[in-house]
């Protein structure tokens, strides 16, 4: 599979000269299979540009939403396949206890927040609520599970035969409530089984260890927690993602280097930058 980062910023789109290298668009990752399957992870502002790479011959696209915070759905209304009658768009995402996924999405895709309503979209639109066990999307097998982040939020594990695995946990606070992290086995750690043995883990890296105590419960990880989570999950390659809007390119260069030097993970770490592609 080929994995491309189209939006790496967390919380708020942050364009500008200080963020040009790591990128200012919010969460969006495209996963393409050898047989042509296209899975899009989250619909942050990066999805608009990602859509320009979808060939006119494509007839199906699946968009997997981890949750419905604005930075993960703001680009949805600008996703070109939604306006093509010849394309089947499948949107996967969590319902809440009280509201269906459709009702939750319509809160954004309807006036006054957006001029076009969900039901007016010309594509063949199908909505699927997660978590729902493992499902097959083209040549991919996709598993989802609720993870620690405010509101219904899932992580995704995308597998491709013969065994390459991508895990996507962009908003994730596995250390919440733990006196020490990590101190429990994977089965007792949020996202632990999803990420287990991943060839590539894309994971929340919003805060420094110094910043994290001010934001406990906001649903994000410190760089140190992220690196320790990668060790617990025994991943092969980790991509720090969902960068804080307040962190400039220069900040991120320094913070990533310091955190990696401090933790000395046994696996490869590549800080996520918009436009990067990974081949698994």
């Amino acid at each position, binding site marked *: 599979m080929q994995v491309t980062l189209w939006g790496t910023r967390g919380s708020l789109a942050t364009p500008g000269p200080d963020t040009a290298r790591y990128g200012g668009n919010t969460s969006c990752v495209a996963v393409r299979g050898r047989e042509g399957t296209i899975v899009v992870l989250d619909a942050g502002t990066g999805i608009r540009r990602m859509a320009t790479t979808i060939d006119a011959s494509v007839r199906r696209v699946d968009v997997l939403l981890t949750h419905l915070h604005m930075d993960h759905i703001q680009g949805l209304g600008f996703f070109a396949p939604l306006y093509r009658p010849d394309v089947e768009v499948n949107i996967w995402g969590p319902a809440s206890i009280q509201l269906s996924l459709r009702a939750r999405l319509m809160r954004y895709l309807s006036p006054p927040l957006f001029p076009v309503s969900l039901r007016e979209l010309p594509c063949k639109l199908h909505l699927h609520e997660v978590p729902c066990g493992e499902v097959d999307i083209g040549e991919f097998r996709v598993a989802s*599970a*609720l993870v620690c982040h405010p509101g219904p939020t899932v992580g995704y594990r995308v597998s491709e035969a013969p065994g390459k695995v991508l895990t996507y946990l962009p908003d994730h606070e596995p250390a919440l*409530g733990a*006196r020490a992290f990590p101190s429990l086995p994977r*089965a*007792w750690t*949020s996202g632990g*089984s999803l990420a*287990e043995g991943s060839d590539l883990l894309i994971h929340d890296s919003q805060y420094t260890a110094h910043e994290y105590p001010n934001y406990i419960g906001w649903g994000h990880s410190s760089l140190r927690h992220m690196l320790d989570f990668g060790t617990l999950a025994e991943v092969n390659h980790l991509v720090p993602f969902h960068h804080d809007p307040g962190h400039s390119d220069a900040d991120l260069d320094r913070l990533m280097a310091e955190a990696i030097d401090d933790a000395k993970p046994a696996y490869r770490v590549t800080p996520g930058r918009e436009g990067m592609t990974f081949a698994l």
Partner: protein
Amino acid sequence: MSTSKGIQIILARQLASCVAMPILLVDAEGTLIFYNEPAEAILNQRFEETGEIPSDEWNRLVAVADEDRNPVQPENWPMRVARLQRRPVSRTIWTRSGDSGWRHLQVTAFPLVGEGGHLLGVMNIFWEI
């Protein structure tokens, strides 16, 4: 991919680890999957030593009696009723584990129900009287 506990159960354990009230967590099958340090005194066991305990095994570890010291059978224990009838239960009991003495406790057991009405387990909170 191995199987993780549900996020609700993980968070329930985190909560139990941070409070002073004795708390037991059982899963939907009745297995005792966690008890916190204050609850170790009630069970006369340490979680670090026992780990998870199947229901038939841990039911034998504890004796439960009502206010009049009449034995309460496991099927009538608050946690069992909360799990099977999916409703909260609160009552006063006497309990003893192993060689420890009888303890007078108020217990509240309530089911943890996830999305789609899925039963995840039961949280049992004890108060020493």
